[in-house]
C-alpha cells in the first residue's frame, strides 16, 4: 500500500478518468498532451502499467529517454481517451485491444458478446517529441497529423515538393517569395496531406502524395491562412484526387489548427450525406489538453486552439 498523499491511493487500483460522452456525428474530439509537462515518475509508471506487453516492449525499444517517453504517452493517451467514453462497464484503459486493418491502420478490436454491439468509434493519433494528440469521431474515418511549427526541413522546400507533391502544390509553394512563409505553408500542406492518407487508412505508400492535391478552395493564392472576415466558404480546404476524381474526394473535410502556439494540427474526417448543396455543413470540434489520471482542461475557444482553416 502506498503511503503518499491519499490522491495516490485514489487511483492506485482504479485510476480515475473523467468520463466524456461520445462525439455526435459531424463532431470531432481532439485530445492532446505535452510530454514536457509530465514529470512524475509514478505517473509514467501508471501509464506503462496500462499498456499491453507488446506495446511496452515497443516503447522500451525506442532509443533514448525522450523518445521512450513520447512513445509511452502516445499509447497511454489512446487507451485512456477511448476508455473515457465508457462504451461499456467492462472497458478499462488496460483491457482495450487493438489491431491493424489490412493497410496497417490501427483500430480497436472490440471484445463483444452477441447482445452488445460496439459503437462505430474511430480514432487516429499523431505525435512529435513535444506533443502527442488523439482524434476521435463516431461513424466517420479520421486522420490527424501534428508537426512543430518551426520544424526544420533538411532539403530545399521546392526540391522536396517537386519530388513528392503534386504539380499544383509545387506551383502554389513556388509562388511564395518569403522563404519563412514558404516553409510554414509547406509544413501546413504536409500535415494536411498526412492527415488525408491517414484518414484513408492506406498510409503513405498506399496513397502517394503526388496523386492528390490539397488546396484552399476559394482563394488558393492566400494559402492556408486565416482570412479576416472570411466566410465559411472562403476558408474551405479541399482535396482533388487524380486517381479517384469527384466521387471520393468530396467525402472528406479538413481542419487546420494551430495548437498550443507551437504546432500545426490537421484533421481530416469523412463527410456524410455529402452532395453538391451540402458542402458547408459546419464541423464541431472540441479540444482537451490532458494529463490522464491527473487533469483535463477543455481548451476549445482559448488561445491554445487557433483555427487556421476549415471551421
Amino acid at each position, binding site marked *: 500500500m502506498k503511503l503518499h498523499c491519499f490522491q495516490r491511493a485514489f487511483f492506485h487500483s482504479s485510476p480515475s478518468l473523467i468520463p466524456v460522452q461520445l462525439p455526435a456525428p459531424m463532431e470531432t474530439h481532439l485530445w492532446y498532451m505535452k510530454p514536457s509537462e509530465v514529470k512524475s515518475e509514478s505517473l509514467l509508471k501508471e501509464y506503462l502499467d496500462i499498456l499491453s506487453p507488446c506495446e511496452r516492449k515497443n516503447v522500451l525499444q525506442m532509443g533514448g529517454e*525522450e523518445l521512450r517517453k513520447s512513445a509511452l504517452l502516445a499509447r497511454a493517451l489512446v487507451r485512456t481517451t477511448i476508455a473515457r467514453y465508457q462504451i461499456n462497464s467492462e472497458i478499462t484503459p488496460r483491457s482495450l485491444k487493438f489491431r491493424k486493418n489490412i493497410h496497417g491502420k490501427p483500430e480497436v478490436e472490440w471484445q463483444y458478446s452477441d447482445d452488445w454491439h460496439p459503437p462505430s468509434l474511430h480514432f487516429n493519433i499523431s505525435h512529435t517529441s513535444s506533443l502527442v494528440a488523439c482524434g476521435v469521431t463516431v461513424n466517420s474515418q479520421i486522420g490527424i497529423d501534428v508537426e512543430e511549427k518551426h520544424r526544420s526541413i533538411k532539403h530545399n522546400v521546392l526540391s522536396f515538393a517537386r519530388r513528392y507533391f503534386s504539380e499544383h502544390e509545387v506551383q502554389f509553394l513556388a509562388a511564395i517569395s518569403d522563404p519563412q512563409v514558404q516553409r510554414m505553408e509547406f509544413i501546413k500542406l504536409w500535415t494536411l496531406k498526412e492527415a488525408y492518407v491517414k484518414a484513408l487508412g492506406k498510409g503513405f*505508400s498506399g496513397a502517394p502524395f503526388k496523386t492528390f492535391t490539397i488546396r484552399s478552395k476559394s482563394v488558393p493564392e492566400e494559402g492556408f491562412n486565416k482570412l479576416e472576415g472570411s466566410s465559411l466558404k472562403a476558408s474551405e480546404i479541399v482535396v482533388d484526387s487524380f486517381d479517384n476524381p469527384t466521387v471520393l474526394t468530396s467525402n472528406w473535410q479538413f481542419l487546420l489548427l494551430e495548437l498550443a502556439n507551437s504546432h500545426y494540427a490537421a484533421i481530416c474526417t469523412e463527410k456524410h450525406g455529402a452532395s453538391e448543396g451540402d458542402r458547408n455543413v459546419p464541423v464541431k470540434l472540441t479540444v482537451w489538453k490532458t494529463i490522464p489520471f491527473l487533469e483535463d482542461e477543455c481548451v476549445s475557444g482559448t488561445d491554445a486552439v487557433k483555427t487556421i482553416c476549415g471551421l
Partner: protein
Amino acid sequence: MAAVSATCVRFRTSSAQLSIRASNQIIGKSASLVSLGWTRTGVFPCIRTSRLQICAAKAETVEKVSEIVRKQLALSPETALTPQTKFSELGADSLDTVEIVMGLEEEFNISVEEENSENITTIQEAADLIDKLCDKK
C-alpha cells in the same frame, strides 16, 4: 575466363590505398574498406560513370546510409546505429523518413517508388534496396 565461385570478397586495410587488378580492369581504391561483389560470371554489377568506382556490396552501402540517417535525424555521435535499427526507434517520423529516402536517392542516384518507401524501415532494408536498384542500372 575463369568462373568465380565466391560471391563476395572483402578486404579491410588501415593503410591508405588498395588497388586490385582483375580482368585487366582497375576495380577500386578506398582508404579503409574495399568490398567487392562478384556475380557468377565475374561481371561487375555496375560502374558509376562519374568515378571509376563500383556500386559496392552491402558494407559500404550500409555505412553511407547510416551517415545519411545520422545527418537527417541529427543524432549525437554516441548514438549507436546497427543495420537493424529501425528509423522509428531513432525518433524518425514520416517526414524524416521521406527526407531520408530523398537523401538516399540523391546520394546513390536512384529513384525509390512510393510503394517501396514503406519497406525502408531500417538501415539494412535501405541498403538492400539501394543495392538492388544499383544492380539494375
